[in-house]
């Protein structure tokens, strides 16, 4: 386990300096919309919160962290000069493989396709699509979180944005619960799958749906994706601990203790594997962490988009 | 019946148990499922003061090997009955001696409604005694 203080200091510092926990400039991370026909105006704004975009970087960095956790080298992490080279900044962006980035970009592109197919009047403005700051909240850096969230919300308000469409549970939670509570700013927030508005018989498959904690427990949204999939002729096989009672993928611990995070992930995977069907996640953290435990996981958007194409 | 023969060798024990104390006490032993020998025969009595001296001697004559009077002791609901009982027993003992009966065959004791251990102890004591001294040999009269 790493000393959380060091990690928090790094992440908080990154957010403060770059508005991004990993210190990578936004233009380098948020590239999925390039060359993708995206309206710039509309009723609701697609707000990715950059979570999907970060996953390849998180995976890479935690790989390094995992290597040194609980070794004597781990103690050296606090020597700031040593870390940033791969934990943050441009260094990290350089060593992260390109095809991974492409995969996650694909997810976002699918979401945009799904919204379009559902005839949702939405738009995207990369300049307003910021990281929500939720990691700072989770880590206990309340001050840092509030400061950052104020900045993000301020920008959106200034641009006159009222409705947001989210793509991941963490950002959704931050916008629905944390922003009003700690920043005093409220938006009308919907996840993309709540807006799916088409049916198809193309599914023809069974999947194991892994509910993320935030959707299952905190936001009580688990029934929505299930219904969407059912409408697409995709059957969700029952998982013992699902919905309100879902089990964590272990992801949130990865920056502090990759080992712990894998342990928890392995246990969840074991439970999910009991069904024998392909696992589908709807959170970039879950996606990454279950994969780390060796699962072949698909994103919900991929499954939905597949039904579109056929 | 072999079991019958066996129990005869053991000698039969008559237990006079008071309705309010010792008899429920014996029931309580039952509720606890604690085993004791089968040569015990419990008669429910309101108060043992009812029995005249001759009753005891007749019992021994008929073939009862030992008698335990399980009374309420000081908690007897009939004030004075216990004392009257005790004086009567003195006379019985005298008569027993006259007939060459081991007076240990007759015991007076107090057993309460939850005296499980005391109950078992009394039964075991009498059995040990009877195994030692055998059935009563009454002077025929």
């Amino acid at each position, binding site marked *: 386990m790493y000393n959380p203080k060091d990690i928090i200091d790094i992440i908080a510092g990154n957010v403060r300096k770059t508005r991004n926990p990993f210190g990578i400039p936004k233009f380098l991370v948020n590239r999925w919309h390039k060359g993708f026909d995206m309206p710039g105006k509309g009723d609701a704004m697609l707000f990715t919160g950059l979570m999907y975009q970060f996953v390849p970087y998180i995976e890479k960095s935690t790989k390094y962290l995992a290597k040194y956790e609980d070794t004597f080298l781990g103690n050296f992490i606090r020597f700031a000069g040593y870390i940033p080279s791969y934990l943050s900044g441009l260094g990290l962006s350089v060593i992260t493989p390109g095809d991974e980035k492409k995969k996650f970009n694909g997810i976002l592109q699918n979401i945009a396709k799904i919204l379009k197919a559902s005839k949702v009047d939405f738009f995207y403005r990369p300049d307003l699509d910021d990281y929500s700051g939720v990691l700072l909240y989770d880590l206990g850096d309340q001050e840092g979180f509030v400061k950052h969230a104020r900045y993000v919300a301020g920008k959106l308000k200034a641009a006159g944005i009222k409705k947001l469409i989210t793509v991941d549970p963490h950002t959704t939670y931050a916008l629905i619960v944390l922003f009003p509570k700690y920043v005093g700013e409220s938006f009308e927030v919907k996840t993309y799958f709540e807006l799916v508005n088409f049916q198809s018989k193309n599914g023809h498959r069974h999947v194991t749906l892994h509910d993320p904690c935030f959707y299952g427990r905190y936001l009580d949204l688990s029934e929505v994706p299930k219904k969407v999939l059912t409408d697409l002729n995709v059957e969700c096989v029952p998982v013992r*601990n699902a919905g*309100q*009672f879902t089990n964590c993928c272990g992801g949130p611990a990865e920056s502090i203790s990759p080992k712990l995070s894998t342990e928890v992930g392995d246990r969840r995977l074991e439970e999910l594997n009991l069904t024998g069907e392909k696992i589908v996640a709807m959170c970039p953290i879950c996606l990454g962490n279950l994969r780390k435990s060796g699962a072949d996981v698909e994103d919900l958007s991929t499954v939905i988009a597949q039904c579109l194409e056929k | 019946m072999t079991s019958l023969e066996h129990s005869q060798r053991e000698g039969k024990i008559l237990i006079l148990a008071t309705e309010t104390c010792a008899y429920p006490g014996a029931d309580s032993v039952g*509720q606890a*499922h604690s085993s004791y020998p089968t040569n015990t025969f419990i008669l429910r009595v309101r108060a043992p003061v009812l029995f005249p001296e001759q009753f005891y001697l007749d019992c021994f004559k008929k073939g009862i090997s030992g008698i335990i009077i399980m009374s309420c002791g000081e908690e007897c609901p009939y004030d004075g009955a216990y004392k009257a009982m005790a004086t009567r027993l003195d006379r019985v003992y005298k008569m027993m001696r006259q007939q060459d009966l081991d007076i240990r065959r007759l015991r007076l004791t107090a057993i309460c409604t939850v005296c499980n251990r005391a109950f078992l102890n009394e039964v075991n004591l009498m059995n040990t005694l009877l195994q030692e001294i055998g059935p009563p040999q009454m002077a025929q009269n």
Partner: protein
Amino acid sequence: MNSILKTDFDVLVVGGGIAGLQTALDLGDQDYKVAVVEKDATIGGKMIRLSKVFPTLDCASCITTPKMASAAHHDNITLFTYCDVNSLDRVGQTVTADVTQRPRYVDPNKCIGCRQCEYHCPVYVSDAEQGGFSATKAISIPFSNAIPQIAVMDVENCMLCGKCEKVCPTHAIDYFQEPEQFVITAKTAVLTTGFELTPVSNKHQYGMGEIPNVIDSMQMERLLAPHGPYNRVLRPSDGMEPDSIAYVQCAGSRDKSMGVSYCSRVCCMYAIKQTMLLSGSLPLADITVYYMDIRAFGKGYEQFYQNAKAMGIEFVKGKVAKISEGENGGVELHYESQDGEGVVTANHDLVVLSLGMVPGWNPEGICPVSADSDLFVKTIRPKLSPTLTDMEGVFVAGAAAGPKDIVDTITESGAAAVEAAKYMVALERSRKAAA
């Protein structure tokens, strides 16, 4: 609804469990005419279904049967079993209840309780009276000491094969029986509607009743009863005699995540009682009770608890958080051992959920009496007159007014009976004064 029959009584008692019977007896003994309306096919309530009672370890059947019998034979008491109360209201000085007699498909006046129908019926049905561990037939007498001893047909499981009709020596079978409506009027009513167990499905983490060998406390009562489904304690998954048995306390009480925040008052004691009975029938078995607080508050209860400890029953402080299926029919309990060990997974052959009590009756839409926030009938003077409800001349006793053990139920029933009697004396007085 056309009510064909009207009957008039002094008192209407709703519920024929031990509270209702005691209330009825206490009023009947004062020469009041009492009607007892019971929803089951037999009176006796939960108590007759128990194995033994704490802390005396009296056989429940042995001490309940006489009460049932004396109520059934009492000159002043009329029993209406297998009946639903559709409405209960007061108009002026009269309490009126609209009642439905559910069809037994057996003529109660002809049936002699010989059980020939049951023996010959070809349909085996899971026997709820035996915790579902054994079978009864689609027509049967509820259980051996049921009162009245009249057969009841489970029409949803009947194939109408006609066997019962053929063998019935008194021609009591009537396939065409219909529900019958009637009206009971009385001067006052006592609600003794009792309790049900907290639904086990309320707790996801305990497997919602789907883990084999996790049973509820009432099922254990049946396993322990001498006339239970196996006549001994076996685990239901495969009939093995369990070597290790665990009790999960507060599995349905003091747990807001289940929607029950109150203490159900009896579970500690019945669990201790069951462990004592178990250690009698399975002397070699390890028995563990997982608890938060042992609530042995009644007369003789603490001594009973200390006896259990002295007998070697293990008491572990800690609420079981999660139950999962173990290997070979075993059950895994997950809890925090508070003595420094941390999170522990314990394996047992058989696990008993000490379920709590929820109300057995919801007055809503039937009777204008109020329920409290705990959903039990509300009492308006809990200190000086604990059996008073917010409806004039309607009283409550026993578990209908909150979880209660048998002795507290008995005393409360007496108190309700005296309140009802007082009410009728006053009513009489005011009638005389008016006349």
